[in-house]
């Protein structure tokens, strides 16, 4: 069950990724190659934190179990502590009573972290527009990928996951690190 992973294909993909890095000036050479290799490794080892509140949880269960099997995409391992998770799945409606908890969970996650808004309510509030619901999880925390649907079909969820993987691959690890470091230095020493 789910064990027939095509290792040859994965190896070939890694080789291709490494070869794609053009033989450029020595400084750029290492950077580009390392970035892509790290991105490739990261996108297939997602530890997710399912923040399941509502109806979408039923479809989340469907995605997680045998029929659709999210494990095929390397994201099968739920971690129920935010400190061990990379991707936060906001599954379902967020209301104002829930908002501080969602924020706290997000803040406890370590960088690098991504957020998927699963379903219409988490994306925009859906058709609940009233005194208690938050109009989308992105009013509380930054969101990377929005999966539409009320609730989304499992195929849509997998599509969203693949989109997130593409984003993770693209995101330069070294550049991001550099930017974070710069930001940290700025915060430490004040404005230059």
């Amino acid at each position, binding site marked *: 069950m789910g064990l027939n992973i095509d290792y040859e294909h994965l190896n070939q993909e890694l080789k291709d990724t490494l070869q794609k890095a053009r033989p450029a000036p020595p400084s750029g050479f290492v950077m580009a190659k390392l970035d892509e290799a790290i991105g490739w490794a990261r996108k297939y080892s997602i530890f997710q934190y399912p923040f399941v509140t509502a109806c979408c949880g039923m*479809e989340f269960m*469907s995605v997680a*179990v045998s*029929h659709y099997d999210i494990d095929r995409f390397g994201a099968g391992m739920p971690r129920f502590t935010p400190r061990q998770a990379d991707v936060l799945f906001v599954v379902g409606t967020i209301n104002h*009573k829930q908002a501080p908890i969602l924020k706290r969970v997000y803040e406890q996650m370590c960088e690098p972290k991504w957020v998927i808004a699963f379903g219409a309510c988490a994306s925009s509030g859906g*058709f609940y527009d009233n*005194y208690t619901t938050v109009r989308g999880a992105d009013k509380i925390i930054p969101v990377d990928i929005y999966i539409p649907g009320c609730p989304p079909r499992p195929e849509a969820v997998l599509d969203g996951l693949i989109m997130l993987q593409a984003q993770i691959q693209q995101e330069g690890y070294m550049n991001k690190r550099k930017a974070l470091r710069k930001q940290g230095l700025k915060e430490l020493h004040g404005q230059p």
Partner: protein
Amino acid sequence: MDTEKSLSPSAEVDILEPTETRRMRVNVGPSHPAMHGVIQIVVEVEGETIVYSDTNFGYLHRGFEKECENHTYQLCIPYTDRLNYVSPLINNEGFCLAVEKFFGVDVPERCKYIRTMLSELSRISDHQTCIGAAAMELGAFTPFLYLMKGRELIYRILEEVTGHRLTINYMRPGGLAANLPEGFFEHLRDIIPVIREVTSETDKLLTKNRIFIDRTRNVGAISKEDALSFSYSGPCLRACGVAYDVRKAFPYSAYDRVDFEVPVGSTGDTLDRYLVRMGEMEQSVRIIEQCMRQIPDGPVSVNDPRVILPPKQEVYHTIEGLVNHFKLVYEGIRPPKGEVYQMVEGGNGELGYYIVSDGTGRPYRVRVRPPCFMIVSSMDFMIKGAMMADIVPVFGSLNMIAGEMER
């Protein structure tokens, strides 16, 4: 030598004497892996024993009742899907029956049978999810996978009929959105043996499983009198030995024409609640099989211009049809002034709708009687004096559905 002596257990200490403990406050939830749904239980423990607990919820309050007051009756139906999202068809049915009660319309026979059949499919998926999730929280992952396999088949057949897997918006006051698709009965005939097989596989894995029984027998037991005082209904009440089932006591749709039993337990503990749910799944399959044999041909909606949209042919070619269509869509169904209460047997028990109409196209007040609200209100009572580890099986067997409980 001295240090060694002080580290070794002294001869005077009696190991049978209980060690000194102090009260500790532990927070379970609101985002906890073993709490399906968002609920917070603040527990005070002495050692492992719970001495005080306080259940907090409302993390999925979505303003269902206020939203309904601001929508026409037809537009309330999608909101009812999301009450008990594990068995949405039963919610639809309850709301439609309540609106039909205002008008006194009697839906066609075929519609009644379809409603019964689909409600029972929903009930099976509800119980499958409840048992699967409760077993998974006790560490039994395989039954969860098996039951989800069965649920997936039900979702597929519901998608064929209604167009969506979960939030179906299929029933209308006075009938249904559409007739059954072609090949529905062949498909249903194919999946019924699989549903039965999944149930028996789960039965083999859990019912005689020593670990499962040890974790559930005599855990979270509640007496008949206490259960009635807490307004229990559904499988949790039947586990206490009270054979109250809305389908039998106040039959609606086609339930008075099918033969089924009401499984009851005796002690009202977590194991009994599990056994009652297992028994009910088998009874639901029986009801579906009888409906398949009895279902007549014919229309699925009443021919009543007050509640049902006219056929498209009339809308395009006659002015009366066009006006009727426009009024129904724009102003909504307009029930007479008054109030009704209508109940159906939901996955968790008596699901009631109390609707107050002021004669306009929007309900003045919609109140849902959520069965699991009352059941979960006994949580603090049930776990008092129990062990910390008992919270998980007890809570799992109560089958709290946040969408229904907090609306």
